[in-house]
Each structure stands twice: as C-alpha cells, then as structure tokens.
C-alpha cells in the first residue's frame, strides 16, 4: 500500500525525518497559502486532481481556516488529521475536546517551520522593515500582535531549530513579549506518515466525497469506516 503525504511546508522538515517501511512520497505546498483559505483550497484541490498511483493520500493540513472544506480527492481516499491547524501536529497530540488553535488564548505559537515559511509574522516583519523602515514596521508588528501576551516556540527535530529559536527570541524582544518554549513530540506526525490512522486522531474521507468541516468540530471520536487501516 503506497501513501502520498500532501502537506504544508511548515511541517516539511519534521515529516522528512520520519522513516517509513512502506512506500511514502511527499508533496508540499507553500505556507504563504495559509493567509488565504480560498487559495489554499484551490492549491490542495489541484494537487489531488493530478492522477497518481497511490493507495491513499494523507494530508499534512488541518481544517486550516476552512481551506479544506469541500475538497475532493478523485483518485484515492483521503486521511486528514482531526485538527484545526498545525499546532497539535507539532505538539504531538490532538487538542483536548473543544479547544481551538489558541489552546491558551493570547499565545502565539512558533516553530522552526513558522520562522522560515512565507507570509509568517517573522518574514512579514522583515519585509516590512525593508519597505517602511524599522520604526513603522515595528508599529505594524505590534498592531498585528495586539491580542497576544506571549510567544511559545515548539521545539521539534527541525534541523535549524536552535537558529530559529534565536530568531524567535529576537522577534519577541522587538515587541517586548516573553518567549517560552515547549518540547514537541513526533507522535502525531509519525502516525500521519505511518499510521495507525485511528478515527480519534484522523478523519477518513472516501474517494470523490467532499471534506465536511463538521468532522473537525466533533468532540467525540467517530467509528472507523472502511478506509481505516486494518
């Protein structure tokens, strides 16, 4: 049984470090797409429509601002982590029932991927400095972070983790917010690549069936359907 993992580049480095006994191929989409769910939806749909010789496609995306709502996979069944965004994937476990991307309200989560990707807080600030000068860019950054009281950097096995953590420290210092760190876990991402794709952690969608956002807001686990692994 072969698997394609179609994922956001935010988890690229972590995913590429996971070994697999079965054939697994990877495709990644730009993080820049996360700011526009309609564009991300179109990009995922276009990838899914490409004919591929795989038995299943596992998405390295969550609901991501409803970007995957309505998406169909015409050639292979889909398996999707039951998460709203990538934070639980990096942290290693699904969020507690009812919890959102901000498990702790006012916490801005970062990771190696979040410091390197397109259209992230860090890359936007650097672009802003070049365009508007340091003073105005800093004011813009502070405005964008108005609702936050701290950063939390999730430590993973990203190869440039230490460097990116230092960048995160600089970002935090610019706006005068504390930076805390937490150790992530590979558990969820390992399951994403190798299974088991249990229904508590993964949504299973048959070939050609549109992804329903309601599946991500259920707080109880659902019975495993035909697409689940034996």
């Amino acid at each position, binding site marked *: 049984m072969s698997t394609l993992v179609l994922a956001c580049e935010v988890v690229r480095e972590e995913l590429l470090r996971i070994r697999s006994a079965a054939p697994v191929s990877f495709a990644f989409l730009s993080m820049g797409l996360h*700011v*526009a*769910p309609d564009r991300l939806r179109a990009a995922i749909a276009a990838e899914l429509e490409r004919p591929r010789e795989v038995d299943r496609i596992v998405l390295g995306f969550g*609901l991501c*601002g*409803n970007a995957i709502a309505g998406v169909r996979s015409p050639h292979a069944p889909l398996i999707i982590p039951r998460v*709203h965004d990538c934070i639980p994937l990096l942290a290693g476990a699904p969020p507690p029932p009812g*919890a*959102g*991307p*901000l498990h702790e*309200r*006012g916490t801005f989560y970062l990771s190696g991927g979040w410091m390197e990707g397109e*259209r992230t807080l860090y890359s*936007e*600030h650097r*672009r*802003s400095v070049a*365009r*508007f000068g340091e003073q*105005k*860019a800093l004011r*813009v950054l502070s*405005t*964008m972070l*108005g*609702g*936050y009281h701290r950063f939390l950097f999730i430590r993973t096995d990203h190869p440039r983790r230490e460097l990116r953590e230092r960048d995160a420290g600089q970002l935090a210092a610019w706006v005068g917010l504390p930076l805390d760190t937490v150790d992530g876990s590979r558990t969820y991402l390992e399951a994403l690549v190798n299974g088991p794709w249990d229904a508590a952690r993964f949504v299973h969608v048959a070939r050609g069936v549109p992804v329903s*956002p309601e599946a*991500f*807001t259920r707080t109880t686990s659902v019975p495993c359907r035909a697409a689940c692994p034996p």
Partner: protein
Amino acid sequence: MTNTSLQQAVLTELADAVVALDEARAVDAAHEALNESVDPYTAIESGLLVGMSRAGQLFEEQEYFVPELLVASDALYAGLGVLRPHIAADRLDVPGKVVIGVVEGDTHDVGKNLVRIILQTKGFEVHDLGRDVPPSRFVDKAVEVGADVIALSTLMTTTMVNMDETVKLLAKRDLRDRFQVIVGGSPLSKAYADRIGADGYSKDAIGAADLVKRLVQQAPRVAT
C-alpha cells in the same frame, strides 16, 4: 487646468497617496483639496476611500499584505484628520450605529479594525467592543446604544460557533428583528452566514462597509 480638472487631480492624488502608503502625502493632498475648494465629504468618499478600496484590491491580488493594509489605513486616517473638521454640519448626520467586535475565544482583530476605520470614515457611529467578546456583550451594547447593525468577526474555525450563539441569544431575548447582524472573517462564507441566520456577509473590509450602508438604507432604524 480648469477648476474641475484641478479638483479631479486632487481626488486622484488623495487616492494615490493611500495606495502609495504615504501618510505625509495624504496630509498634503488633503490640504490641497481644501485649497482647491473640493467638498471635504467628496474628498473623503471619492479620494481617500477610493485609495483604500484600491489597496484592498491589491491585497486580494496578493500585491499587498496585512502590513500594507495597516499602513494604508494610517494614510487614510491622516487625510481624514485634515478633512473631517471641514465637513459642513448638515453632512455630518450619522448614517447609522454599529456595534462591532471579534467573537469570544478569538483575539485576531486586524480585519475588524479595518472595518471599523472604514465605517468611521463613512460617518457611522461605531462602538468597538474589541476582541474576545462574549455574545451577551454584543447584545447588551447594541440595546444600550440603539445600534442598527451588529458586526461579528473571527479568523478561527473554532470560534465561528460564537457568531451562531450571538444570533441565537438575540432570538432568545426577542431582539432578533431589532438588529441586523453581519459576519466576516477568512474562514467564513455566505453559506455559513445564511445557515446561522445572519443578515449579511462580506469577504473584505470595504465590502463590509458597503453592506452596512445597504442594510441601514433598506431598514431604517426605528427610534427606540
């Protein structure tokens, strides 16, 4: 140049200053508008707001991103500060009252703030409740100020449900017919707005202000 073409040139300059993200240029253009006897109300509507609308279009086309929109709104505000004191008293009628905020559980307020700024620029009386606002605060504030429209914003799929909760609370308090409810935010759609029984949805800030205007004109506020 004729007087009319001079005035048109000033309006274009006001719009261009906002698109160019240039506060100082917007202030200069606003003074120029007053010097050329351009009606300040027209200078705002057909100058500054046209520029903001073009900045919004550039955002849609991914030429501009959130920092650009924030700096464009600085230029808009700067021009507004020069022009607003010169608007004739009879043009200062408040077209309507809006209670706006980010729903409970969410703290992303950049989009909501842009909507507030554009509504204020268009003369609306805006009561901004900020972020992480529980349904009851929206309802209580709308009753207190006699609002026409309650505008709800969120960026997160997990907190969209609190828009539904706010509409339900209005119904529970027998107030649903008294206020128009509009929703916005990147995970939302017209279909979602319809499903929760909202009166309107907009996918961007300029559209939200037009929507409020339309709703208020359609259903003039009843004195309470």
